[in-house]
Protein backbone atom coordinates (compact mmCIF):
# COMPACT_ATOMS: atom_id res chain seq x y z
CA UNK A 1 0.00 0.00 0.00
CA UNK A 2 2.71 2.42 1.00
CA UNK A 3 4.59 1.94 -2.24
CA UNK A 4 1.80 3.67 -4.18
CA UNK A 5 2.01 6.63 -1.82
CA UNK A 6 5.78 6.73 -2.06
CA UNK A 7 5.48 8.20 -5.58
CA UNK A 8 3.15 10.94 -4.33
CA UNK A 9 5.48 11.52 -1.38
CA UNK A 10 8.46 11.91 -3.72
CA UNK A 11 6.52 14.43 -5.81
CA UNK A 12 5.49 16.36 -2.69
CA UNK A 13 9.12 16.52 -1.53
CA UNK A 14 10.30 17.66 -4.99
CA UNK A 15 7.53 20.25 -5.25
CA UNK A 16 8.58 21.76 -1.92
CA UNK A 17 12.30 21.39 -2.69
CA UNK A 18 12.44 23.09 -6.11
CA UNK A 19 10.87 26.47 -5.23
CA UNK A 20 12.68 26.40 -1.89
CA UNK A 21 16.04 25.98 -3.62
CA UNK A 22 15.16 28.68 -6.15
CA UNK A 23 14.28 31.20 -3.44
CA UNK A 24 17.26 30.24 -1.25
CA UNK A 25 19.78 30.39 -4.12
CA UNK A 26 18.46 33.79 -5.16
CA UNK A 27 18.82 34.99 -1.60
CA UNK A 28 22.40 33.69 -1.32
CA UNK A 29 23.69 34.70 -4.75
CA UNK A 30 21.96 38.01 -5.33
CA UNK A 31 23.89 41.21 -4.52
CA UNK A 32 22.21 43.28 -1.85
CA UNK A 33 22.27 46.99 -2.50
CA UNK A 34 18.91 48.23 -1.32
CA UNK A 35 17.75 51.78 -1.76
CA UNK A 36 14.45 53.57 -1.31
CA UNK A 37 13.26 53.06 -4.90
CA UNK A 38 14.15 49.35 -4.98
CA UNK A 39 12.33 48.71 -1.71
CA UNK A 40 9.18 50.57 -2.71
CA UNK A 41 5.97 48.62 -3.20
CA UNK A 42 4.90 48.17 -6.81
CA UNK A 43 2.34 46.14 -8.71
CA UNK A 44 2.88 45.10 -12.33
CA UNK A 45 5.63 47.68 -12.69
CA UNK A 46 3.56 50.68 -11.63
CA UNK A 47 3.34 52.25 -8.22
CA UNK A 48 0.43 51.23 -6.01
CA UNK A 49 -2.20 53.86 -5.50
CA UNK A 50 -4.09 52.34 -2.59
CA UNK A 51 -3.75 49.88 0.28
CA UNK A 52 -2.63 46.36 -0.67
CA UNK A 53 -5.23 44.59 1.45
CA UNK A 54 -8.44 45.81 -0.08
CA UNK A 55 -11.92 44.40 0.26
CA UNK A 56 -12.64 42.07 -2.64
CA UNK A 57 -15.97 41.84 -4.41
CA UNK A 58 -18.60 39.57 -2.90
CA UNK A 59 -19.03 37.96 -6.33
CA UNK A 60 -15.85 35.92 -5.80
CA UNK A 61 -17.40 34.40 -2.69
CA UNK A 62 -20.53 33.45 -4.60
CA UNK A 63 -18.46 31.66 -7.22
CA UNK A 64 -16.43 29.81 -4.57
CA UNK A 65 -19.66 28.79 -2.84
CA UNK A 66 -21.19 27.38 -6.03
CA UNK A 67 -17.88 25.65 -6.78
CA UNK A 68 -17.87 24.06 -3.32
CA UNK A 69 -21.39 22.66 -3.79
CA UNK A 70 -20.57 21.08 -7.14
CA UNK A 71 -17.25 19.84 -5.77
CA UNK A 72 -19.11 17.91 -3.07
CA UNK A 73 -21.55 16.65 -5.69
CA UNK A 74 -18.60 15.27 -7.67
CA UNK A 75 -17.36 13.49 -4.55
CA UNK A 76 -20.72 11.75 -4.25
CA UNK A 77 -20.92 10.90 -7.93
CA UNK A 78 -17.37 9.62 -8.36
CA UNK A 79 -17.80 6.29 -6.47
CA UNK A 80 -21.05 5.75 -8.35
CA UNK A 81 -19.31 6.41 -11.67
CA UNK A 82 -16.65 3.83 -10.83
CA UNK A 83 -19.34 1.26 -10.00
CA UNK A 84 -21.50 2.27 -13.01
CA UNK A 85 -20.88 -0.94 -14.99
CA UNK A 86 -21.88 -3.17 -12.11
CA UNK A 87 -25.18 -1.68 -10.93
CA UNK A 88 -28.71 -2.31 -12.30
CA UNK A 89 -30.80 0.33 -14.06
CA UNK A 90 -32.78 1.13 -10.90
CA UNK A 91 -29.66 2.34 -9.16
CA UNK A 92 -28.61 4.38 -12.18
CA UNK A 93 -32.01 6.10 -11.96
CA UNK A 94 -31.21 7.02 -8.36
CA UNK A 95 -28.04 8.75 -9.48
CA UNK A 96 -30.03 10.53 -12.20
CA UNK A 97 -32.49 11.75 -9.53
CA UNK A 98 -29.48 12.92 -7.50
CA UNK A 99 -28.23 14.95 -10.46
CA UNK A 100 -31.73 16.18 -11.35
CA UNK A 101 -32.33 17.65 -7.89
CA UNK A 102 -29.06 19.58 -8.09
CA UNK A 103 -29.76 20.52 -11.70
CA UNK A 104 -32.93 22.22 -10.43
CA UNK A 105 -30.83 24.31 -8.07
CA UNK A 106 -28.36 25.07 -10.84
CA UNK A 107 -31.12 26.26 -13.18
CA UNK A 108 -32.58 28.37 -10.35
CA UNK A 109 -29.34 30.23 -9.62
CA UNK A 110 -28.72 30.57 -13.37
CA UNK A 111 -32.13 32.22 -13.86
CA UNK A 112 -31.55 34.35 -10.77
CA UNK A 113 -28.43 35.71 -12.44
CA UNK A 114 -26.00 34.55 -9.76
CA UNK A 115 -23.62 33.24 -12.41
CA UNK A 116 -23.37 36.45 -14.43
CA UNK A 117 -20.49 38.74 -13.57
CA UNK A 118 -21.62 42.21 -12.59
Amino acid at each position, binding site marked *: *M*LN*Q*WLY*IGIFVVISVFLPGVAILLARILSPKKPNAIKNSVYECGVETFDKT*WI*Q*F*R*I*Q*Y*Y*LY*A*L*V*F*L*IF*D*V*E*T*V*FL*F*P*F*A*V*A*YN*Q*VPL*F*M*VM*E*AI*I*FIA*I*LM*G*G*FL*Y*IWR*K*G*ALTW*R
Partner: protein
Amino acid sequence: MSVQQVIFISFALLTVFSAIMVVSLRNLFHAALWLVLALLGIASLFALLGASFFAAVQILVYIGAIAILLIFAVMLTRNIMSDEVTQTNRAWGLAVLLVSVIFFIIIGQISSWSGFSQPLSEFTYTGQETILALGKGFVSPSGFALPFETASVLLLAALLGGVYIAMDKGKE
Protein backbone atom coordinates in the same frame (compact mmCIF):
# COMPACT_ATOMS: atom_id res chain seq x y z
CA MET B 1 10.02 1.84 15.33
CA SER B 2 9.00 0.84 11.86
CA VAL B 3 9.12 3.17 8.87
CA GLN B 4 5.34 3.47 8.92
CA GLN B 5 5.39 4.65 12.53
CA VAL B 6 8.01 7.28 11.74
CA ILE B 7 5.92 8.53 8.82
CA PHE B 8 2.79 8.57 10.98
CA ILE B 9 4.45 10.47 13.81
CA SER B 10 5.96 13.06 11.49
CA PHE B 11 2.64 13.67 9.72
CA ALA B 12 0.76 13.77 13.04
CA LEU B 13 3.23 16.29 14.43
CA LEU B 14 2.91 18.37 11.25
CA THR B 15 -0.89 18.33 11.61
CA VAL B 16 -0.88 19.28 15.28
CA PHE B 17 1.75 21.99 14.78
CA SER B 18 -0.10 23.63 11.90
CA ALA B 19 -3.40 23.35 13.80
CA ILE B 20 -1.81 25.22 16.72
CA MET B 21 -0.49 27.82 14.28
CA VAL B 22 -4.04 28.26 12.90
CA VAL B 23 -5.47 29.21 16.27
CA SER B 24 -2.48 31.17 17.60
CA LEU B 25 -1.50 33.38 14.65
CA ARG B 26 -2.81 36.92 14.71
CA ASN B 27 -2.92 37.43 10.98
CA LEU B 28 -6.08 35.72 9.73
CA PHE B 29 -4.72 35.24 6.23
CA HIS B 30 -1.63 33.39 7.51
CA ALA B 31 -3.91 31.30 9.74
CA ALA B 32 -5.91 30.29 6.66
CA LEU B 33 -2.71 29.25 4.88
CA TRP B 34 -1.66 27.15 7.90
CA LEU B 35 -5.12 25.59 7.84
CA VAL B 36 -4.34 24.30 4.35
CA LEU B 37 -1.25 22.57 5.75
CA ALA B 38 -3.24 21.13 8.66
CA LEU B 39 -5.82 19.73 6.23
CA LEU B 40 -3.03 18.28 4.11
CA GLY B 41 -1.74 16.54 7.25
CA ILE B 42 -5.21 15.06 7.83
CA ALA B 43 -5.25 13.87 4.22
CA SER B 44 -1.91 12.13 4.69
CA LEU B 45 -3.26 10.44 7.83
CA PHE B 46 -6.19 9.15 5.75
CA ALA B 47 -3.67 7.91 3.20
CA LEU B 48 -1.72 6.10 5.91
CA LEU B 49 -4.94 4.39 7.01
CA GLY B 50 -5.37 3.07 3.47
CA ALA B 51 -8.43 5.23 2.82
CA SER B 52 -7.17 6.67 -0.44
CA PHE B 53 -10.60 7.93 -1.52
CA PHE B 54 -10.98 9.95 1.66
CA ALA B 55 -7.47 11.32 1.26
CA ALA B 56 -8.37 12.50 -2.24
CA VAL B 57 -11.69 13.93 -1.01
CA GLN B 58 -9.91 15.72 1.81
CA ILE B 59 -7.59 17.43 -0.66
CA LEU B 60 -10.28 18.06 -3.27
CA VAL B 61 -13.03 19.40 -1.01
CA TYR B 62 -11.31 20.73 2.08
CA ILE B 63 -8.18 22.21 0.54
CA GLY B 64 -9.56 22.83 -2.94
CA ALA B 65 -12.85 24.40 -1.94
CA ILE B 66 -13.34 25.07 1.76
CA ALA B 67 -9.91 26.57 2.44
CA ILE B 68 -10.26 28.73 -0.68
CA LEU B 69 -13.72 29.80 0.50
CA LEU B 70 -12.20 30.76 3.88
CA ILE B 71 -9.42 32.73 2.19
CA PHE B 72 -12.03 34.51 0.06
CA ALA B 73 -14.03 35.25 3.21
CA VAL B 74 -10.92 36.79 4.82
CA MET B 75 -10.20 38.85 1.71
CA LEU B 76 -13.82 40.00 1.50
CA THR B 77 -13.92 41.20 5.07
CA ARG B 78 -12.80 44.73 5.63
CA ASN B 79 -10.37 45.62 8.44
CA ILE B 80 -10.15 42.12 9.89
CA MET B 81 -6.66 41.68 8.44
CA SER B 82 -5.07 44.00 10.98
CA ASP B 83 -2.85 42.43 13.62
CA GLU B 84 -4.18 44.33 16.60
CA VAL B 85 -6.70 41.71 17.66
CA THR B 86 -5.45 39.47 20.45
CA GLN B 87 -6.09 35.75 20.33
CA THR B 88 -6.56 35.27 24.06
CA ASN B 89 -8.85 36.71 26.70
CA ARG B 90 -8.74 36.66 30.50
CA ALA B 91 -10.27 33.18 30.83
CA TRP B 92 -7.64 31.30 28.84
CA GLY B 93 -6.04 29.63 31.88
CA LEU B 94 -9.39 28.33 33.08
CA ALA B 95 -10.20 27.14 29.57
CA VAL B 96 -6.91 25.19 29.33
CA LEU B 97 -7.60 23.57 32.70
CA LEU B 98 -11.17 22.59 31.83
CA VAL B 99 -10.26 21.30 28.38
CA SER B 100 -7.43 19.13 29.74
CA VAL B 101 -9.68 17.72 32.50
CA ILE B 102 -12.38 16.87 29.94
CA PHE B 103 -9.72 15.39 27.62
CA PHE B 104 -8.43 13.02 30.32
CA ILE B 105 -11.98 12.05 31.33
CA ILE B 106 -12.83 11.19 27.72
CA ILE B 107 -9.56 9.27 27.21
CA GLY B 108 -10.14 7.42 30.48
CA GLN B 109 -13.65 6.45 29.47
CA ILE B 110 -12.62 5.33 25.99
CA SER B 111 -9.69 3.28 27.28
CA SER B 112 -12.02 1.29 29.56
CA TRP B 113 -13.88 0.15 26.43
CA SER B 114 -12.78 -3.33 25.34
CA GLY B 115 -12.30 -2.36 21.69
CA PHE B 116 -9.73 0.30 22.55
CA SER B 117 -6.68 -1.96 22.88
CA GLN B 118 -7.81 -4.41 20.21
CA PRO B 119 -5.66 -4.17 17.06
CA LEU B 120 -7.48 -3.21 13.88
CA SER B 121 -8.38 -6.05 11.55
CA GLU B 122 -6.86 -6.03 8.09
CA PHE B 123 -8.90 -4.25 5.42
CA THR B 124 -10.36 -6.86 3.07
CA TYR B 125 -10.81 -4.54 0.09
CA THR B 126 -7.80 -3.73 -2.04
CA GLY B 127 -7.18 -0.88 -4.44
CA GLN B 128 -10.18 0.12 -6.52
CA GLU B 129 -12.54 -2.24 -4.70
CA THR B 130 -13.07 0.26 -1.88
CA ILE B 131 -14.45 2.87 -4.26
CA LEU B 132 -16.53 0.20 -6.03
CA ALA B 133 -18.03 -0.89 -2.70
CA LEU B 134 -18.68 2.72 -1.74
CA GLY B 135 -20.33 3.47 -5.09
CA LYS B 136 -22.57 0.41 -4.88
CA GLY B 137 -23.38 1.21 -1.25
CA PHE B 138 -24.45 4.73 -2.20
CA VAL B 139 -27.05 3.66 -4.75
CA SER B 140 -28.23 0.24 -3.55
CA PRO B 141 -31.62 0.36 -1.77
CA SER B 142 -30.28 -1.95 0.95
CA GLY B 143 -27.33 0.39 1.42
CA PHE B 144 -27.40 4.17 1.65
CA ALA B 145 -29.78 5.12 -1.17
CA LEU B 146 -31.95 7.36 0.99
CA PRO B 147 -29.03 9.23 2.62
CA PHE B 148 -27.56 9.61 -0.87
CA GLU B 149 -30.70 11.34 -2.15
CA THR B 150 -30.99 13.33 1.08
CA ALA B 151 -27.44 14.57 0.53
CA SER B 152 -28.60 15.89 -2.83
CA VAL B 153 -31.46 17.81 -1.17
CA LEU B 154 -29.02 19.08 1.47
CA LEU B 155 -26.62 20.29 -1.22
CA LEU B 156 -29.57 21.95 -3.01
CA ALA B 157 -30.54 23.74 0.20
CA ALA B 158 -26.93 24.87 0.75
CA LEU B 159 -26.69 26.08 -2.84
CA LEU B 160 -29.93 28.05 -2.78
CA GLY B 161 -29.42 29.41 0.72
CA GLY B 162 -25.82 30.44 0.07
CA VAL B 163 -26.64 32.12 -3.21
CA TYR B 164 -29.71 33.83 -1.74
CA ILE B 165 -27.70 35.29 1.14
CA ALA B 166 -24.55 36.15 -0.78
CA MET B 167 -26.22 37.66 -3.84
CA ASP B 168 -26.15 41.40 -4.21
CA LYS B 169 -29.80 42.34 -4.07
CA GLY B 170 -29.28 46.06 -4.49
CA LYS B 171 -28.63 45.89 -8.22
CA GLU B 172 -31.51 43.67 -9.31
